[in-house]
């Protein structure tokens, strides 16, 4: 029980709920799309604001929705800069592969800053009950958790390699390869810890008005989740490969015995079981991949949300299950394929509805005492660059 030690009494359980519908959002989406096309992308900034307002506004708690306050012009400015950068990036990458690599490195270095700006902007532009959120994490911590921590094993290996080279002067590749492999393994082993640290940084530095959001994440729990996932993955993949092998064995035997051997060449029918088995494996692997994604998201989201609290007033409770999320993803994929992407608005609404309906707020008082804090003007540059280059702070936790 994660919350057994909470020192306040709970009086009131309020569910989150989503009030939008697929049909309604489809209409907003298609108008956004055509106006963005007709204005050569300029309207997309207005479209983004309308879309966010729709989803924030329909995500409700205690009879009122969230709101999104970004000004389209601020978003447009950021977006123009981002598109210019993206253009340079793609063209440079196509024409000069070396420039592409340099640009990617630069982007990597800038990522913590981009995310930091983006967190500030998005928090500031979000309100609930007339009070704005805020993000007070430091830039230093952003670099620490997003760049330095994940690179520690590699940097250590590099240092060790240099020392080794100076001491032994050996140019044999063996020991150096060992170092790199060790660094890679350590990096993988650190993933749960890094993810926990980053999530803690993001959520723990948010405020609702003057109220502090706290999150007490357990490193042990993160490792447990990943360990279970690892176990399940091995089981599933072994089962798939075994099933494909057995199927191929039987099908292959049957068909081969039915076709008289022609001189030298394999009859084309003999390829059938091989192709069937390959297709089966491919689809099974895809589905297994979806399940893994569902497992990880459900477990991590529950753990994180169950440990979020606002002052001593409110805590969250998330109860999404792997099975439910897995079915949800499968239906989404089928919908997208069958409608050639036109089901996208319904999928977004389904997603928002699922996430809201599996979340509750446990309150021990009223939210009446919060006041918006004054903050500097925010530019959307970080947010837009982040969005264009897909380095947004998406933790798969959002609504």
């Amino acid at each position, binding site marked *: 029980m994660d919350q057994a030690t909470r020192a306040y009494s709970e009086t009131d359980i309020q569910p989150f709920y989503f009030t939008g519908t697929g049909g*309604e959002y489809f209409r907003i989406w298609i108008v956004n799309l055509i106006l963005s096309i007709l204005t050569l992308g300029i309207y997309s900034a207005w479209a983004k604001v309308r879309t966010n307002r729709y989803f924030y506004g329909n995500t409700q708690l205690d009879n009122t929705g969230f709101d999104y306050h970004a000004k389209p012009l601020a978003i447009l400015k950021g977006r123009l800069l981002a598109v210019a950068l993206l253009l340079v990036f793609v063209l440079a990458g196509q024409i000069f592969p070396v420039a592409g690599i340099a640009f990617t490195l630069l982007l990597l270095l800038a990522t913590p800053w981009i995310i930091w700006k983006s967190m500030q902007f998005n928090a500031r532009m979000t309100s609930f009950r007339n009070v704005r959120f805020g993000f007070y994490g430091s830039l230093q911590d952003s670099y620490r958790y997003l760049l330095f921590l994940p690179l520690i094993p590699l940097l250590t290996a590099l240092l060790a390699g240099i020392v080794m080279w100076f001491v032994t002067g050996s140019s044999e590749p063996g020991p150096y390869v060992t170092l790199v492999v060790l660094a890679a393994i350590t990096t993988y082993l650190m993933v749960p810890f890094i993810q926990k640290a980053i999530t803690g940084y993001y959520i723990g530095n948010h405020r609702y008005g003057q109220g502090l959001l706290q999150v007490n994440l357990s490193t042990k729990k993160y490792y447990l989740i990943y360990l279970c996932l690892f176990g399940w993955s091995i089981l599933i993949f072994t089962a798939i490969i075994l099933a494909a092998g057995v199927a191929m064995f039987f099908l292959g035997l049957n068909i081969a015995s039915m076709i008289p051997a022609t001189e030298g060449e394999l009859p084309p029918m003999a390829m059938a079981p091989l192709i069937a088995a390959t297709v089966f494996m491919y689809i099974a692997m895809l589905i297994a991949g979806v399940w893994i994604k569902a497992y990880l998201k459900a477990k991590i989201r529950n753990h994180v949300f169950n440990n979020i609290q606002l002052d001593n007033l409110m805590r969250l409770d998330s109860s999404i299950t792997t099975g439910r999320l897995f079915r949800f993803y499968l239906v989404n994929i089928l919908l997208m394929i069958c409608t050639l992407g036109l089901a996208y608005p319904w999928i977004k609404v389904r997603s928002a509805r699922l996430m809201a309906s599996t979340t509750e707020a446990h309150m021990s008082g009223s939210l009446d005492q919060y006041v918006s804090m004054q903050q500097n003007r925010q530019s959307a540059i970080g947010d837009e660059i982040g969005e*264009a280059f897909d380095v947004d702070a998406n933790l798969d936790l959002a609504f």
Partner: protein
Amino acid sequence: MIKGWLYPADSSARSEAGLSTDRGQFIVTRDRQAPVTGSIRELVVSQRVGNITRKITLPDKSLFETTDNDAVDALLAATGHNALRAGIIHILESRWQWIALALLATLLTGFAALRWGMPWASNELAFAMPARATEIISAQTLELLDQAILEESALPVEEQHRIRQHFETTLLPLQRENFTYRLHFRHMSDIPNAFALPAGDIVITDRLIELADNQEEIDSVLLHEIGHVVHRHGLQQVLHSSFLTIAIIMISGDLTATSNIAVALPVFLLESQYSREHETEADHYAFEHMMEAGIDPVHFSTIMDKISSEPENEAEDNASNSEKRDDADLLKYLSTHPSTPERILQAEKYSREFRKRLSE
């Protein structure tokens, strides 16, 4: 009266309230508190999106919010409030006629951009690209290929010299565009291949020269490559795939979208189609200039035949046999080149024309 909540400025403390209007004035009433009034023109009303909670900011910065969107719209309409103008987007989003029109227009523009817009823009830009830029691109690409897959040619120097001499004296005078062509000989692990870089560098592999039984066959391949250079196919493809990548990122808002199979497959099909059109164009360039130089276009079909019967090309060739027609049709969409029999057929057509002219 519109029912809702009233919040003091910047505060989350809310109390139930009602909003009504009277001759250009608004009145917000609450239990046990004095009503707030003022001019309706001073109200700042949030834009309507779907049916989300409407926010009305009063002159004293306190906030009235309500879920009764229709009542707010009616109030705006009745009082001629200036927030009315911003409501036009919501009207677009509410009428099915507009939605159907928007859907149709989106699909049409999407199709037109892919089918005509991008190829046209790639073509225009490729021809507008300064020569200096193409020089840099070509030099960089050749350097990279040399490091990665190409090795020095094992062909005797005299042979190289002879082919280059012939290339410069016989083939180059045939083209009237202003390119500086450079012929490079390379070894590429026994694969017969030839390709052109945008600035006019043409690379031909040892295996291809080995396969050719006479100079005419080599000429036909070189003329095909000159065709690529003249039509600036290399640049066009770079630009085209850049446009495609950017468009996909813009639409999906996701940089990793291009590695997603559902997106990657249509992109691949589009680019293959585009590439096949270029190959056909280069083939025609070769045929026409062969006829001009007095070389029978049939040589092109001979060398194509030899290339496709090389071991690593067998699979493709097999699939084009007539008994596997279905497979061949499918492969057609996946291939970056037109099918070999198709190209040979074209070469033979030109060859007949060539011989007819000779006999006249």
